[in-house]
């Protein structure tokens, strides 16, 4: 969604231009650090960032068919942040926007600041902050990188839509009520965000599988090389066993009986404990704490109601669903009803999330099994 000239008024355009210029200046310095290889890094920045920008430009042209003729494409902010780091990400997306504005007239010249602030800075920063936080919380591993990039991309797109609404509130030139703009923008962009999230997660997963060292967001995760000595008599059959054993112990499967005890594979947090604690917290929050949550409508609904804006607003399509308005239909006690709806909500979310996990895991374990068979 490239904003054209005249959509946002001049003062806000200038202000966002200043913000964008400052952010690009900071990113130039940060990108030098991120892309630094063996040398000082200054001379690596331009070719690498330039090629990454070209990649983003090209990947935005890759069409992902949705259904019956419609298709979408990647926006790339979250992807860039995870693959090459936040500073380089901001820089590359900004350069892409600049070139699109100057060359292809896609997005106005005076709206360049708005476009960069919205699509380069907000998307990238939100995505990367979320990604980093999730990677810290989740157990180490390739799968949590994929999950974290899914969530990061999912949130980054509606966040950009929200930021756009904020800019629109400050300097919009059309007289559309803010509630409507917000609902329309965020509503549409949640859908776009789901597509973006799936594609980003799949792409990051594909890169992590082949070149994990290239993924900036996964840099802390590579384990240092371990040297192990395994007493093997037969060299021919042994080679395969050694690799399998190494691989298995890396994934903390039962240690092979033969050979001296290898070095402990580092302290690993138990996934199950984290998982159970998370579920318990979510259930307590949803079921218990929602007793005391405010029954008043949230800010926007309230504003809309006070101003009489929502008089014409259509009711939500799911109004008649048994869980509408965060309550269970046929239960009288409002507190019990709210709590129950919360618990059901957590359960549903959990079911969907677990479903995704199971699918991913099944595919992966199938792959490992094949590999094991192959090596024997």
């Amino acid at each position, binding site marked *: 969604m490239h904003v*054209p*000239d*005249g*959509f946002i*008024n*001049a003062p806000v355009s200038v202000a966002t231009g200043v913000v964008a210029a400052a952010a*690009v200046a900071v990113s*130039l310095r940060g990108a030098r650090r991120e892309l630094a290889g063996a040398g000082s890094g*200054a*001379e690596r*920045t*331009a*070719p*690498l*960032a*330039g*090629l*990454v*920008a*070209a*990649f983003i*430009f*090209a*990947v935005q*042209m*890759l069409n*992902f*068919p*949705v259904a019956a003729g419609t298709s979408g494409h*990647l926006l790339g902010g979250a992807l860039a942040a995870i693959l*090459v780091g936040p500073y380089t990400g901001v*820089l*590359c997306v900004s*350069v*892409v926007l*600049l*070139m699109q504005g*100057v*060359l*292809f*007239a*896609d997005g*106005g*010249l*005076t709206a360049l600041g708005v476009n960069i602030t919205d699509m380069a800075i907000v998307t990238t920063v939100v995505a990367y902050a979320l990604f980093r936080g999730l990677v810290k919380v989740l157990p180490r591993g390739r799968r949590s990188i994929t999950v974290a990039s899914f969530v990061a991309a999912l949130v980054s797109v509606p966040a950009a839509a929200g930021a756009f609404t904020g800019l629109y509130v400050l300097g919009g*030139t*059309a*007289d*559309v*009520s803010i509630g409507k703009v917000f609902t329309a923008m965020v509503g549409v962009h949640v859908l776009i965000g789901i597509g973006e999230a*799936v*594609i980003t997660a*799949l*792409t*990051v*997963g*594909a*890169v992590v599988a*082949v*070149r994990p060292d290239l993924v900036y967001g996964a840099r802390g995760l590579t384990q240092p090389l371990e040297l192990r000595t395994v007493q093997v008599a037969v060299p021919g059959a042994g080679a395969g066993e050694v690799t399998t054993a190494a691989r298995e112990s890396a994934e903390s499967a039962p240690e092979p009986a033969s050979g001296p005890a290898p070095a402990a594979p580092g302290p690993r947090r138990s996934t199950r404990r984290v998982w159970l604690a998370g579920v318990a917290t979510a259930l307590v929050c949803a079921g218990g704490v929602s007793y005391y949550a405010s029954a008043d409508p949230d800010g926007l609904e309230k504003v809309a109601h006070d101003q009489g804006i929502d008089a014409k607003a259509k009711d939500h399509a799911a109004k008649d669903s048994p869980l509408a308005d965060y309550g269970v239909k046929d239960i009288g006690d409002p507190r019990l009803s709210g709590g129950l709806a919360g618990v059901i909500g957590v359960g549903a979310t959990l079911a969907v999330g677990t479903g995704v996990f199971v699918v991913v895991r099944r595919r992966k374990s199938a792959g490992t099994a094949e590999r094991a068979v192959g090596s024997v």
Partner: protein
Amino acid sequence: MGAGHSHKLYRHGHSPVHALPPHCKIAAVFCFVLVVVSTPREAVWAFGLYAVLIAAAAGAARVPAGFLLKRLLIEVPFVAFAVLMPFVAEGPRVDVIGLSLSESGLWGAWNILAKGTLGVAASVLLAATTELRELLLGLQRLRMPPQLVQIASFMIRYGDVITDEMRRMRIARLSRGFEARGVRHWGILAKSAGALFIRSYERGERVHLAMVSRGYTGTMPVIADTTATRAQWTRAAALPVAALAVCLLGWTL
């Protein structure tokens, strides 16, 4: 550069507009758009005059109207948004051909359409009369950080290479009988995108090494330093100054 090297948006020519130094043109276009954006939307005639100014500039650059109009199509998504606006905006309603439309919404739609179209037309004219390399040099002359200019020039130079790489991968997929039909096939497309990233990044590393081996230290030597004379600046300023006069008239009348 010959025909094969220039980008598709550029239209080779020898008009006075083509001959202007790039940074004068960029500054002129930017000022013009800024003036257009700050014009009050009620001054409908002012936007007509702006359109005449752009048409005059296009005439001086010998860019045919068809070329310009075809390139304006990029704006279509926002036109759709502008068309929606009179239906959803607040305020007093007016009846137009039996439809109840919001008055301020109509003004908003007009505002976006007029300013957006003029902005796009000005940018298209700039891209049509300025070579890519010159455009980047012009941005550098206008004190854009050299590092940013370098990144942009790498992006432009290798954009076609990377796009071709993507096209080759698409042909490879097609020739193996794959056709993406729906969400189920996203995994394969995403793997291609991942491969594209790896190939781009590795190409970047190779390009960097090749440049270092030729003596690159982080800055590009400026070979042809274009400077603008006072006369050229004046000629380039004709468009924004005329627009400014229209804008001032629009505010006072």
